[in-house]
């Protein structure tokens, strides 16, 4: 009896050990979508990014080839410590292979460090800071959709060249705000403009009136909004209220998503310039993807560029997996493989990945339509200019990424 029992226990222990250890070279993949699920960035990333990830799984066709792919998600609440804790647990306990999305630059930088330490993969779509592929680059991170350099050289340069040669910044007081202010200042100065001042506000501010009054008093021609999501929406709405736009000062919404325009309404947002790398109504490919996405969203929202980037980055990852034929569970190896393959999907078109992890694709300068120009819900942008991929992102010879100095 006793011997039987110990044999049973030994057997169970062996079975458990086999179950938990992920063997190299299987066809099991786990994707973790880590973003803001409930706060000021939830509409531009949030549950929509999870839907985009699931669409990428389906469209990859890997499940038909015998792969088992799981998508899990969590809320990092825009706090680096919470984000890193979740990511650590995902990698150590849940055996997650890829961390996807991760908006909020401060969280992204912390998670990128962790991904390198654990030899995991970060496919970042939501975060803005260009540091991810410059001084903080790692062999485990690919930065997909956009970065602060793109925004600065899109909206920043365009407004300066159009006569807005003095700038005042309203800057969100965290990594993203600092990065976009720095990159935009460089772009403005390069285009012959001057920065006359700025003020830092806490992340997630409801009332901007104090800051807007300071911007108004600066007499700068352009007020650069170095913030995002709900902060940008509130700042724009209240700027209209305080007569800033009617007083001749122009607002530069440096980072603005289609979800923000939807929240503001065209009456308030009309005429704003913004830079994005994706808009649902660009071509047949984007329209088809967006329609399918919209049907799955509970509030029938169109995808933002962040959500589209999650789809595109995972699709590329699955292509790399498919070409290897098995999951090596080796982050740096997978990322290296992904960098050797050109990117190509219906959402962002053709592109490539630089050695520093920066994905190159074109960016677009848009202007928000007036209510009269809009034909219906979500018809918000008209295309002003296309910025070619090599101008939209930091040139490789200017990148400060340590990986490049070999």
């Amino acid at each position: 009896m006793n011997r039987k029992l110990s044999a049973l226990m030994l057997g169970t222990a062996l079975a458990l050990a086999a179950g938990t250890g992920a063997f190299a070279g299987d066809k099991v993949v786990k994707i973790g979508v880590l973003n803001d699920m409930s706060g000021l960035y939830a509409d531009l990333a949030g549950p929509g990014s999870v839907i985009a990830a699931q669409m990428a799984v389906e469209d990859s066709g890997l499940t038909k080839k015998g792969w088992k792919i799981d998508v899990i998600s969590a809320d990092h609440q825009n706090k680096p410590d919470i984000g890193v804790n979740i990511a650590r647990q995902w990698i150590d306990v849940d055996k997650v292979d890829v961390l996807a999305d991760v908006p909020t630059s401060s969280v992204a930088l912390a998670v990128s460090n962790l991904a390198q330490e654990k030899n995991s993969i970060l496919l970042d779509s939501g975060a803005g800071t260009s540091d991810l592929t410059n001084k903080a680059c790692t062999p485990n991170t690919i930065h997909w959709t956009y970065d602060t350099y793109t925004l600065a050289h899109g909206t920043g340069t365009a407004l300066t060249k159009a006569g807005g040669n003095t700038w005042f910044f309203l800057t969100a007081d965290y990594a993203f705000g600092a990065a976009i202010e720095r990159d935009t200042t460089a772009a403005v100065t390069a285009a012959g403009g001057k920065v006359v001042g700025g003020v830092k506000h806490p992340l997630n501010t409801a009332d901007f009136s104090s800051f807007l009054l300071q911007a108004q008093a600066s007499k700068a021609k352009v007020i650069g909004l170095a913030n995002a999501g709900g902060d940008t929406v509130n700042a724009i709405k209240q700027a209209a209220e305080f007569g800033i736009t009617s007083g001749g000062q122009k607002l530069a919404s440096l980072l603005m998503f289609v979800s923000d325009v939807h929240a503001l309404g065209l009456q308030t947002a009309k005429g704003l310039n913004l830079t994005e790398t994706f808009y649902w109504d660009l071509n047949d490919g984007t329209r088809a993807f967006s329609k399918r996405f919209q049907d799955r969203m509970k509030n029938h929202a169109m995808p933002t560029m962040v959500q589209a980037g999650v789809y595109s980055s995972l699709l590329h990852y699955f292509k790399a997996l498919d070409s290897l034929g098995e999951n090596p569970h080796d982050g740096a190896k997978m990322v290296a493989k992904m960098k050797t393959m050109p990117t190509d999907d219906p959402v962002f078109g053709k592109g490539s990945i630089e050695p520093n992890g920066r994905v190159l694709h074109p960016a677009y300068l848009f202007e928000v339509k007036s209510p009269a120009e809009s034909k219906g819900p979500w018809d918000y942008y008209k295309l002003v200019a296309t910025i070619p991929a090599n101008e939209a992102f930091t040139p490789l010879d200017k990148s400060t990424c340590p990986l490049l100095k070999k």
Partner: protein
Amino acid sequence: MQALYAQLLVGLINGSFYALLSLGLAVIFGMLNIINFAHGALYMMGAFCAYFLLNGLGLNYWYALVIAPVAVGIFGMVLERTLLKWLAGLDHLYGLLLTFGIALIIQGVFQNYFGSSGLPYAIPPQLQGGMNLGFMFLPIYRGWVVVFSLVVCLATWYLIERTRLGAYLRAATENPNLVRAFGINVPRMITLTYGLGIGLAALAGVLSAPINQVRPLMGADLIIVVFAVVVIGGMGSIMGSVITGFALGVVEGLTKYFYPEASNTVVFVLMVLVLLVKPTGLTGRAT
């Protein structure tokens, strides 16, 4: 110097919201002895109510100012009748947990249907535009908010401290059995008081709808500060909460000018200082 005047005025505007919300909290705490953590969620419901009235029924801002507080107030009274009344006489902690749970549920439901970045609500046409005061451009709507909320605060104070109805209310909290002996329906008075406090929150929600986005988390972001206001002013003190509300708005406005990075912590620093020096709050009486 001009900029300073402007910041003072802006602080006063924010103070109006603090005052209206902390007044409602003070009324509820004073009369029901409940720390109402659902206050922020009900404030948000007031704003959403205004949005639905406009976009669903075509009823404009002025109707919303009346209908939203009544509708949300009734919702509050239902909450009181069905849930809160069972907590009478129990430790504060139970009320705190229940109302906090209610807040999370309400916010979660709204967020599920409307997302997080919110819905636009335009300033009513009669109050659009602004005037140049010399030192700043004052949007007319903001001026309206200050004046209107001051009037409402004073009216509420008068109702509770200076009328017969208010006297019954105060007596009922001191000694409910004695007041009941005089033939007054104490449970009904408590329900109405809760409804009044919630109505004030919903009214603040309607007032803020044109300024801020109508967002599911608009109350959650605000309520923590408002609790600090109530603690500084003294729990349960009506006039104290009104004055502290306006004063802290001004302090916060000045911080945004002199040291903006600290603007969302200054209220809590003040709270700590006040609690160290005078634990009952600035106007609270020791019990």
